[in-house]
């Protein structure tokens, strides 16, 4: 097994916002401190933590949207830097947003939206429409949806469109940021099942960022607990659930079991 994406000693700091801070490039605060994380091919890794722990920053840094102030991100063993490695990452790694409807351009039809990744990475491909229909079918939407606009969709359908879009070009890794937050439980179950089925069919690797331990328990192989910008515990999901080592993990699990 090899790591698809790996963070080593990752630190991320927000630059100060004032003019003075900008001039001296003074960092204001560390959001992530010394984070190590490896996502093995074909597995699902969950990053757990409360809001403000740095979960979203971690995802953005792994996607190359934020620059680490120290440490490195490696994609397929090569250090992430602007240029071919980043392009490679953009092509093979997809991001699922917390708010599926918001991540769709309201003025585009679904067919165009799902074809976007193909148009971006293979601009010479003649007819992406067949592929679009296949992708919509893969997520359980009829192909006539291709001419609809995002505002005509229910929340669950918008979630499916985002998954279809993520599947275009056969990605290797999908990073999902709270993929079912705000969904009804029955819709959440549908989306999670869809993701699990697609993992089986396409050998996908997932990095799921969530605060919902119910999802973590059922859907992840291993997990990393993020607390105040540091990874305080990692391990196989079952092991961590049965024997949490860190005090914070214990609090989290107690809150979860109290439900």
């Amino acid at each position, binding site marked *: 097994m090899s790591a698809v994406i790996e963070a080593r000693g990752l630190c991320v700091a927000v630059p100060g916002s004032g003019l003075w801070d900008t001039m001296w490039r003074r960092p204001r605060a560390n959001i992530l401190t010394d984070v190590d994380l490896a996502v093995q091919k074909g597995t699902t890794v969950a990053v757990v933590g409360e809001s403000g722990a740095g979960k979203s920053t971690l995802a953005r840094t792994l996607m190359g*949207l934020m620059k680490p102030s120290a440490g490195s991100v490696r994609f397929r063993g090569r250090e992430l830097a602007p240029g071919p490695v980043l392009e490679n990452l953009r*092509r093979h790694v997809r*991001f699922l*947003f917390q708010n599926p409807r918001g991540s*769709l351009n309201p003025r585009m039809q679904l067919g165009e939206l799902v074809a*976007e990744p193909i148009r971006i990475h293979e601009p010479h491909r003649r007819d992406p429409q067949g592929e679009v229909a296949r992708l919509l079918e893969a997520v359980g939407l009829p192909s006539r949806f291709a001419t609809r*606009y*995002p505002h005509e969709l229910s929340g669950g359908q918008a979630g499916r469109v985002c998954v279809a*879009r993520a599947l275009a070009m056969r990605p290797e890794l999908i990073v999902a940021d709270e993929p079912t937050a705000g969904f009804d439980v029955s819709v959440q179950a549908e989306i999670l099942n869809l993701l699990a089925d697609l993992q089986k069919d396409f050998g996908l690797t997932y990095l799921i960022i969530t605060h919902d331990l119910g999802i973590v328990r059922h859907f992840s192989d291993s997990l990393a607990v993020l607390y105040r910008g540091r990874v305080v515990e990692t391990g196989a999901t079952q092991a961590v659930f049965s024997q949490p080592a860190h005090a914070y993990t214990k609090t989290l699990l107690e809150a979860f079991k109290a439900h």
Partner: protein
Amino acid sequence: MSAAMPALAAPRRWVAWCLSTPAGRFSAIVLVIFAASALLAPWLTPYDPNHISVYERLASPSWQHWLGTDQIGRDMLTRVLYGARVALAISVGCTSVSLILGVAFGALAGVGPRVLDAALMLLFDTINSLPTVLLALAIMTLIGSSLPTLMGLIVLFYVPYFGRIARGQTRVLVEAPFIEAERMLGASTWRILRDHLMPNLLGPMAIIASMEMPSVISLEAGLSFLGLGVRAPTATWGNILQDGYIFIRDTPWIAIAGGVPLVLTTLAFTFLGEMLRDRLDPKLRKEVT
């Protein structure tokens, strides 16, 4: 917001929508007359707008001169019709040029590096802070007043206005999740600008532009009235108003001839702008859950 797109594809439905309210019908009638008189002025009247006829000076409305004549005997109706040309050129021309430049600079400031943003904003603020009339006075004195100069001046005033709004909108859009989603898909900056930012920016900007049309027309009229606009013999509504102002006690029809079309046109543009806003702004549409 996106509901506007299919609607745009159906001009018939737009016409039907426009005629669905009294204000819409009023606007449509006024603007059609406005556009027709501007485009067809030479064919609608037998007179030349600058033809002087001292024998007929300050004539009351009659069958020969429906709206009477001014102090040097020029036919008022002809001057009003030709004035519409200037008003149309300025309202449509200046607004669209200002809109295009404003959106371009605004979007640039919104997505560009901080330094560029700061520089453009400083420039916009500087222009905005100059008193309109004084600046017009200075420029007109230096270069001389003419229609192109006036139009240039109006564009100069409106680019910062549209630019500021476009910049704000762009900043909001750049932060929008769907733009970030595109970036994460690997879309180039150019692609994001062209396919995702512009279509979402132009809709709201077009509404604002249509609502600004009346003030652009009034600005021309105001500057011309003060003698800072188009040079005297050219027929513009502002010039007519200025002529009428002098003789308003004895021959009020000159001021009325210049003022009524001005009021009607600005009203029509305002109504239309408000209707557009109500239709295109998703926040004003009630969502059914």
